[in-house]
């Protein structure tokens, strides 16, 4: 009897953890599809769209997650297939150096100007 009890317990735990895993996959799926552009829509993410394209990408991402692929692998797979256009979160590469660095540079320049104004003042 004890063995059966333990078995049931183990089964329940296993079951729970598989539910947990499925939950995680769902969360990750939502996170990933929110960062993908629905290519046939105007300015909607895959997650927000209900077009056939979006739905097929949702299923694709889900399957890949179930296969144990990581977020990065999925992004790079989709990038190879559809181009960078599909990614809402632009990667940091030679095309986007300016994109990422220019605003920060502007911030630094602005700070420098204010600093200079303050330093000039004698009090």
């Amino acid at each position, binding site marked *: 009897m004890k063995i059966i009890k333990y078995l049931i317990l183990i089964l329940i735990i296993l079951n729970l953890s598989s539910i947990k895993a499925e939950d995680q996959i769902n969360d990750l799926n939502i996170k990933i599809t929110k960062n993908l552009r629905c290519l046939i829509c105007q*300015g909607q*993410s895959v997650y927000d769209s209900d077009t056939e394209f979006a739905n097929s990408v949702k299923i694709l991402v889900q399957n890949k997650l179930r296969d144990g692929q990581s977020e990065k692998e999925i992004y790079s797979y989709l990038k190879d297939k559809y181009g960078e256009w599909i990614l809402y979160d632009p990667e940091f590469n030679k095309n986007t150096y300016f994109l990422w660095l220019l*605003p920060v540079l*502007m*911030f630094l320049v602005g700070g420098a100007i204010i600093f200079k104004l303050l330093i*000039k*003042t004698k009090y």
Partner: protein
Amino acid sequence: MTSTIGFYSLTFGLVCSFLIIFFSVKNFNNSQFFDNKILSITFLQFFFVTISFFSLILAFVYSDFSNETVFNHSHTTKPLFYKISGTWGNHEGSLLLWLLVLTFFIFVFLLKSQKQKKEYRILTSLIQQVIIIGFFFFLIKTSNPFNYIFPVPAQGLGLNPILQDPALAIHPPILYLGYVGSSIIFSSALAATTLNYVSKDWAKHIKQWVLVSWIFLTLGILLGSIWAYYELGWGGFWFWDPVENVSLMPWLALTTLLHCILVLEKKLLLSSWAIILSIATFTLSMSGTFLVRSGILNSVHTFANDPERGLYILIFLFCLIFLSLFIFFFFFKFEKKKKNLFWLSKETAILINNWFMMYFLSVVLIGTIYPIFLEVFSSEKISIGPPFYNKLIIPFLVPFLLAMAIGPKLKWIKSNFENKKHLILFFIISLLLSILIIRNLDISFLLNTVLVTSAFYLFFITSRDFFVKGFKRLSQNIAHFGFSLLILSILFNNIFSTEVISNLKLGETLENENFKIKFENIKEINEYNYKSIKGKFTVQDLNGSNEIMYPELRIYNQPNIVTSEADIKTNLLTDKFMTMNYIQNQDYFNIRYQVKPFMLWIWLSVLLICFGGVISFIKKYEG
């Protein structure tokens, strides 16, 4: 008939422009006093454009399909309200509205500036007329709203159903009041520069216009955002979509100017910066129109585009920028006076505000136009979406919020930190409160705690000021308090939103740990210009409360488009939001159910921010 009247009064309006220029030049040199003929002709011009605008409205109301604009954007079965709002729901009509507001504002400006110098008034009116003429030509050459079609079609093509909505019907006029208000600031800044009149008086006088444009722009953005929330059907309110960004950029510039003009008004500092901001604000408004109308941007909100129009606006824009830079560099007298800035003073605090605002502006600007340039130069297409803006803006929000709490406490010229114990006390309270809230949640602890802490900090400090300061500096305090409320609501909305997406058949029940959703029934109703398919769902919460939701699909007849209407149950603390969608060739419907806390507070806090502006406007007007 109405089209003929409309077109001719448009032409008369253009003739008025030339008359105004003629009399202005004559008056500028020859007389001591302002020639009231200019005012009369300006009114006449406004009158003609109004006639033109009303004849277009009439053409829409009577479904006069001999008019091309009406044919393209209206239909006899459309409700009267949307026939009228269809007037500005398209490119031609909306430009006519731009023009109407342009002529209206310069008339009001001339009326309200009678205490100002003659030369300044005339020059402002002249520069404004240059802009007005540009828009007249643009309208008549590339986007005439009164083109004929022959033979006259029996029926129109209809208005895009997602534009048939009350919020969106008033969104463009309000937004344009904000955009076009900045044209007055632009003209006036250039006039003041040319006449070397950038002074405390000028700052005081132009601040009213800054406030007016700012209030309308804020309201316009709010309406657009509310519309997107319930109409686009996925429960978001801001998507960092290019067209949204385009309205946010002038807002950021205008908000910066609003703060900068305070320093100019009180201390006669930063005058060159104020002029640059005035130029930038209008330029951004114009480029907004260009980017939206040219169809360069890929966006949910793009409804009309044509490259020729884009090119025209682009050339016009370059001319205006060139003109303003020319005036700025040739006429602006930089102050010789030594600038005295103490690090702990209100001036510095406002500079810090300007610094951050400019940073946010540069993020939005670069994020919006970078993909266009990249595509031109390397023919590679990239998307820039919410993650980019979140990464670059959110970390900077923390010091910004803290500075916003402390800045208004400082005095002009020089300040110190006596009696400021409550500043530290409130910080500790905010920190503890945030930790308490964030602790048990499954999200990144550090980032969220820091963010919530800084927002709470601003919240508490401004709340305290209501009691301590009373009516002193009420407008500023309300606006800052509203902003803290806005950030808090957005943060909590993000953190606590839950949602479920599933496919359900009639009679099926979906259950998860948070709620139970039952698909009760479905009804088809034939409405005037669409067929409605309404689902009935009962949603049972964990705590047993029941809610019946009716999400809806609408199949419009003209044009034939299916839209999904969300059912939203709003109460003080949370919104429940449900949409339903077809799945092709199946009995299943795709159901999306979301519980979104503090949605109402996002809208209310923006209204509060506006209200701060309104109070400031009234106070100045009386004083």
